[in-house]
């Protein structure tokens, strides 16, 4: 049976995309997350900081946004503004998953 080992490949080298949600307060502190703990808190904080920056700059431009959908090649990030903080949903794309504003 050892011959099957020739076809076996470890998946340890494949990086998974984050999937889940995270909530940050107006100061950028992480309030809650459902994203796998294999992603370090620094990573989640950086994502939160970029999202907060996006909302903050839109207010400066006098066009405050309540919701943004960022479409990347293999992932959709949806963020909703919440009293200066934000809740962020991250979902890898598949062929059945097309982002919308609904």
């Amino acid at each position, binding site marked *: 049976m050892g011959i099957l080992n020739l076809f076996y490949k470890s998946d340890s080298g494949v*990086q998974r*995309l*984050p999937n889940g949600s995270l909530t940050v307060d107006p100061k950028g502190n992480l309030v809650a997350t459902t994203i796998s703990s294999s992603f370090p808190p620094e*990573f989640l904080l*950086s*994502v939160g900081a*970029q*999202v907060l*920056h*996006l909302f903050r*700059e*839109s207010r*400066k*431009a*006098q*066009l*405050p*946004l*309540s*919701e*943004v*959908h*960022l*479409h*990347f*090649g*293999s*992932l959709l*990030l949806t963020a909703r503004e919440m009293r200066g903080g934000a809740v962020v949903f*991250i979902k*890898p794309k598949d062929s059945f998953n097309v*982002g*919308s*504003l*609904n």
Partner: protein
Amino acid sequence: MTQETKLSRPKILLVDDNQALLDTFGELLGQLPSQPEIFTATSGTRALLLLKAETFRLLLCDLSMPKMDGLQLLAIVRRQFPELRTVVLTALEEEHFRSRAYALGVDMFWLKPDTQQNMETFLQCVESLLGRDTEGGFRGVQSKGLMDIIQMESLSQSSTVLRITRGSLVGRIWFQDGDLIDAETDGARGEAAFRQILGWKSGTFESLPPEPNRERTILKTVNGLLLETAQAIDEISAPADEHTPEANEQADHKKTVLRLSALTREGAEFVVSIPEKGSTDAEGWGTEKTKELGEWMGEAVESCQKLAQLLKAGPFSHLEAKAMDHRLVMLSHEVKHYLVGWPANTEVPKLKEETLKLVASWES
């Protein structure tokens, strides 16, 4: 100094009842890069005599003067010398003086500079005003064409009467809650008058109090009418040489018409574009906040690119967003980033496709 240089030097008339102040400002203004010739007058009457004798580019006057005050002088100047640029330089800080001066169509209202920095800024503004004579545009909102001014009135849903003067020609355009309801020139009214006014390439304008009881003669939308008028002007313009400033102006004008046409046809509310690289200013149509939105786009693109790297999720494709009155789509096309604002009730599934369609027609 050659005769030619001397002839091209702009002339400034300084009016103030304080001789010491005239001397100081005269000396400072005389050192501006455009090397203006400075004339001074200590009263409004003397200023009017000088204005009749010489052709000035700019009048700088104080408000507090005996016999004829600055506001009276400006009212006469506006009527008799509509092409003259005017600046109020005063120590009167009350807001109503500022609004009265602007209502008379002054180009700039400046409190007498009290710091070195204020003085430098003031001198830069004066230099900028001296350089604007050869450019088109309507005074009151610098560097804006009449189309922009009309769009601004419409977008801000204001009720006002725009009084537009070009030399001896005078026209009025009535707005009620942002709707264009009537226009009038000598001998024309309604759409015909509006087209006539829009044909004037430069002049001055002032906002007069609204006249809500004015009879409505124009029923078309502002954008529709602007588009029609711009097309009509375009058709009757004689073809110009490709490399002349007139030809460039005509090409820009045509581009604006085509873009306004695409905007109206597709139902979008505004478009702002910034180049992918470089620091060229944002371009915008249908919005007063081009600069602010352009700056936000720059920040947003940077944030999205950082997120793409962070998430290792492939390249950033586009952004969709909800604002209070709009749905927004930001995407890249060729070498530019575009932000398109759609009405809040636009169908979402089509938003990206509609934006791509608009942007493609924009650049074609």
